[in-house]
């Protein structure tokens, strides 16, 4: 895995002329943007290369990095060449090996004598040891592995000579805590090396590239270089032959199976994107059911499958050996799959950026064009499909917002550094403030975080607690090796449910599923995984042992994983199209196909439109329903719904059930809801939407659930190695338990505040809630009493994931639930 040749005493220099010669030799012509990046990087500038799907990005930043690190004449003295000088950070470890190969190709082509290494969670320990002895010149790694290196005592030796850092797929990281973790790591690298490294980010199309640059560089000056996009991809829709039997909501899209088969027959190689792993499993099974002869010619790819299986599939696509791969976001990123001709997207892509990204996985052959075909799973997705095309054509791409000052990531990072080199308090505070995420870190928060991870000294509630201690020269360190070991095992911010390994009886590993799913199965039960129907034999020692089942179907594991909200850009585009429809204009095939359904909606109720706030009331055996359609996206709709539900339950004790989707929300109550009053001006007027939401959130218990991720990142809950699990079991508690014990005994704990903040900012999308409230107030309210669920109401009625907002006494609620259960059992 280490590169071609060992470093020499002096590395040879690299000039643009030399690169140009190599390009010419291969019959290439450097793009203008590549030259700009090379020159900027060679001068020591940092920046962000913002490019749609285009080729040449890797060579732009990689050769720029080499020009910087090697200088034009191999300027490095002997003593320093034995250290790693360039880091390449990739968000997916599955990509790392391909990246390494691509980087090496250029190294060999340019006849540079330097080594490239790979270090991820998959790197075998022999290779690690080799790297420790002979550090590669450039190292490909992930944010997690980088943090892990920082938690080692030799962090300074290993990372103290880094001059250039490339951050690949920055758009994937910027909006998440992983991005924050990386910001912190970059600041640490600057400290270790004595000066900030040259940093170059690579990003797909974003709505806010300038902000993305700022976040990456922590506000230091940098260049934003746009690579010209290739032609806009073709975005079309697979239309259902008849709308009559087409579902109104919440389906897998099974009715589109034959149409999809026809499309796949006509193309040499295609990717079929699904939004969830469960949907991918079912689609794979459906396609094989339709075309048994495609066994071996189509494949399945998602994040729970064994890494080896995934690698095999990736290689097979790249070599053009597969007709189709049914996949999830697991294939959003990655090296070019040149043979892929087109992409099919089952269900809504939810956002323009993601749609374009997926489209860009196809059409890489010379002269080819990227093409994505949307496969609606229910009728209203036809409107979404047109809207997506509108927004893409207009270049309305979503922005990605970087998190601010998350206390959990800070807590983790402090322990990471303390376990490595240790840190000086004042120096660390200054270092943190150079990052975008913590630039506004105040002294109080800082003191809290330090106390929380060190010895709880200033926190009265934590007697005898000790994690970090100050050494004789005043540096904070982890001295207890057990604490250090436990911390290293839980570095990272990707939080998954406890998962359990799936193994065949002969020991072959298939992948992993959530523990919760297996817990619901009994030996003998069948389920689908990796395109096979399996039978559970037994669960033992964190592994589920299975055998192949004869049956054709089985339960499908539900992997948790957030459902993406429809972006504001896309929601607005949908409303625009509905206005056209209300005006009788149906200019695209998709709109003509969905026309009968929109007509039905108009007849039974009204069509939602940009200037109209539609509310529908319905009485059923379940109770009283209120449907409202603000088109604010799933998260903000949940925020609006919780707020209204909270207000409805404030006047008199009541319990409301809340369902949301991207278009609107439903409130369901045993008692009539004063719809007019609630959805009226007064109901929507709020001087303090944030405060109201906090109250509503507490009522809805959202923050308890949100705490799962925070507890894990902050190092409260940890999943040990399989071997260690037993001994550490008495130190395990659930995130909910932590939440509750903090709420009762340390209510000022900043992690609780963070949890509330995250619910507001992410799950309820406060910014969009506020905008949504304005929009709802400014629209003309129309309340329609409906006799039966309308096309817009129906998907909400059948939504299974629901929130509860209640102001009733728990005892009253239990009594009612028991009465209902008894009624149902009769």
């Amino acid at each position, binding site marked *: 895995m280490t590169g071609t040749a060992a470093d020499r005493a002096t590395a040879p220099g690299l000039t643009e002329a030399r690169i140009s010669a190599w390009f010419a030799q291969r019959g290439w012509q450097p793009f203008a943007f590549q030259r700009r990046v090379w020159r900027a990087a060679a001068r020591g500038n940092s920046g962000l290369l913002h490019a749609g799907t285009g080729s040449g990005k890797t060579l732009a930043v990689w050769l720029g990095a080499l020009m910087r690190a090697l200088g034009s004449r191999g300027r490095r003295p002997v003593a320093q060449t034995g250290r790693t000088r360039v880091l390449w950070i990739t968000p997916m470890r599955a990509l790392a090996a391909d990246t390494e190969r691509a980087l090496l190709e250029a190294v060999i082509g340019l006849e540079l004598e330097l080594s490239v290494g790979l270090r991820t969670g998959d790197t075998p320990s022999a290779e690690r040891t080799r790297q420790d002895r002979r550090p590669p010149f450039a190292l490909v790694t992930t944010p997690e592995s980088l943090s892990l290196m920082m938690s080692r005592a030799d962090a300074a030796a290993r990372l103290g000579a880094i001059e250039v850092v490339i951050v690949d797929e920055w758009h994937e990281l910027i909006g998440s805590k992983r991005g924050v973790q990386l910001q912190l790591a970059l600041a640490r690298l600057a400290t270790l090396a004595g000066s900030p490294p040259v940093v170059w980010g690579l990003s797909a199309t974003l709505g806010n590239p300038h902000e993305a640059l700022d976040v990456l560089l922590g506000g230091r000056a940098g260049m934003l270089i746009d690579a010209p996009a290739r032609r806009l991809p073709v975005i079309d829709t697979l239309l259902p032959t008849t709308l009559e039997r087409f*579902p*109104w*909501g919440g389906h897998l899209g099974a009715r589109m199976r034959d149409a999809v088969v026809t499309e796949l027959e006509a193309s040499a190689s295609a990717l079929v994107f699904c939004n969830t792993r469960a949907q991918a499993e079912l689609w794979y099974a459906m396609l094989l059911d339709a075309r048994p002869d495609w066994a071996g010619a189509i494949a399945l790819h998602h994040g729970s499958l064994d890494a080896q299986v995934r690698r095999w599939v990736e290689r097979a696509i790249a070599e053009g050996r597969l007709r189709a791969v049914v996949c999830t976001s697991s294939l959003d990123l990655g090296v070019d799959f040149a043979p892929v001709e087109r992409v099919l997207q089952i269900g809504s892509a939810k956002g323009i950026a993601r749609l374009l990204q997926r489209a860009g996985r196809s059409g890489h052959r010379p002269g080819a064009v990227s093409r994505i075909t949307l496969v609606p799973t229910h009728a209203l997705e036809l409107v979404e499909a047109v809207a997506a095309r509108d927004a893409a054509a207009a270049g309305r791409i979503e922005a990605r917002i970087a998190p601010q000052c998350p206390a959990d990531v800070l807590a983790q990072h402090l322990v990471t550094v303390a376990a490595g080199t240790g840190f000086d308090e004042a120096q660390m505070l200054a270092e943190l403030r150079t990052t975008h995420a913590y630039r506004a870190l105040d002294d109080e928060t800082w003191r809290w975080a330090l106390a929380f991870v060190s010895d*709880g000294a200033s*926190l009265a*509630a*934590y*007697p*005898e*607690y000790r*994690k970090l201690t100050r050494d004789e020269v005043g540096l904070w360190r982890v001295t*207890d090796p*057990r*604490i250090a070991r436990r911390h290293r095992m839980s570095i990272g911010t990707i939080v998954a449910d406890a998962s359990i390994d799936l193994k065949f009886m002969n020991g072959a590993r298939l992948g992993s599923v959530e523990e919760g799913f297996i817990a619901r199965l009994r030996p003998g039960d069948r389920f689908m995984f990796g395109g096979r129907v399996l039978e559970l034999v037994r669960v033992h020692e964190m592994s589920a042992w299975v055998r192949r089942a004869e049956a054709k179907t089985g339960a499908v594991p539900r992997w948790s994983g957030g459902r993406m909200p429809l972006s504001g850009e896309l929601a607005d585009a949908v409303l625009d199209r509905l206005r056209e429809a209300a005006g009788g204009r149906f200019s695209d095939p998709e709109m003509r196909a969905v026309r009968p359904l929109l007509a039905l909606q108009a007849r039974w109720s009204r069509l939602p439109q940009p200037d109209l706030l539609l509310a529908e009331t319905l009485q059923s*055996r*379940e*109770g009283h329903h209120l449907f409202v359609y603000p088109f604010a996206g799933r998260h903000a709709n949940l925020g609006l719904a919780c707020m209204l539900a909270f207000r409805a339950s404030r006047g008199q004790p009541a*319990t*409301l*059930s809340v369902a949301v989707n991207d278009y609107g929300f439903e409130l*369901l*109550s*045993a008692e009539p809801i004063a719809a007019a009053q609630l959805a009226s001006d007064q109901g929507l007027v709020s001087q303090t939407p944030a405060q109201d939401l906090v109250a509503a959130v507490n009522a809805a218990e959202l923050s308890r659930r949100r705490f799962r991720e925070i507890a894990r990142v902050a*190092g*409260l809950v940890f999943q040990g190695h399989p071997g260690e699990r037993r001994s550490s079991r*008495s*130190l395990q*508690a*659930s995130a909910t*338990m*932590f939440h509750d*014990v*903090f709420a*009762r*005994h*340390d209510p000022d*704990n900043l992690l609780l505040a963070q949890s509330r903040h995250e619910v507001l900012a992410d799950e309820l999308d406060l910014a969009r809630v506020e905008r949504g409230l304005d929009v709802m107030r400014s629209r003309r309210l129309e309340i329609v009493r409906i006799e*039966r*669920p309308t*096309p817009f109401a*129906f998907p909400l*009625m*059948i*939504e*299974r994931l629901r929130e*509860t907002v*209640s102001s009733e*006494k*728990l*005892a009253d*609620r*239990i*009594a*009612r*639930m*028991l009465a*209902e*259960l008894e009624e*149902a*059992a009769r």
Partner: protein
Amino acid sequence: MMIELGSDRVTLLPERAVWLTDSRSLLVADLHLGKAQSFRRAGIPVPAGTTAATLGRLGTLIERHAPAELIVLGDFLHGPLAQQGPAIDALALWRARYPRLPIRMVRGNHDDAAGDPPKRCGIECLTAPLARAAFALCHDPDEPADRFKLAGHVHPVISLRGAIDRARLGCFWLRRDALVLPAFGDFTGGWEVRAKSGERTFAIADGQVFDVGTLAARPRARSRWRAGSA
């Protein structure tokens, strides 16, 4: 709530305890005293206050019912790290308030690792099962016994689901061979019971015990409406 088990009457208390009328025994399970302290000593920040809260609730129960004995069905201390320090001191102080009350405990799996509370706490430590009325008192309900067991260990909770509502509650779990008590200690988690046929559960909420009976929390078919049923 009073239930009859054979010829014995047993009261399920909403304070997560059981009252045996004839012997005037107060039963609780799974105190896990010193758990938070064990976490803190291992470098995991859990705020102080849970052991005090647990003992406080237990004291209130004792004062209200004036039992002839208190029996803890195992997992008295959470782990060896709880053996010294504030948790034991708090326990000893608390114990001194009830000098004449016999306190017994049948050892559970945590007690095997944690060891018995020190002598000065005056807890009589026994190896299960302990006989009371017609029952075998033990920690693990799956322990073999020749009669009906009163036990703890599993921290049972139950999920209830209604048309518009749901809740997760601590519960008593009445099996064919055992009555399982909910965990008494603060900072203890729960394990969701799926009652099989012939089993009953009793949920605790708002200071009341609710007879859930054999009603299972099965997922409900959400809607009878069908799309396009115009």
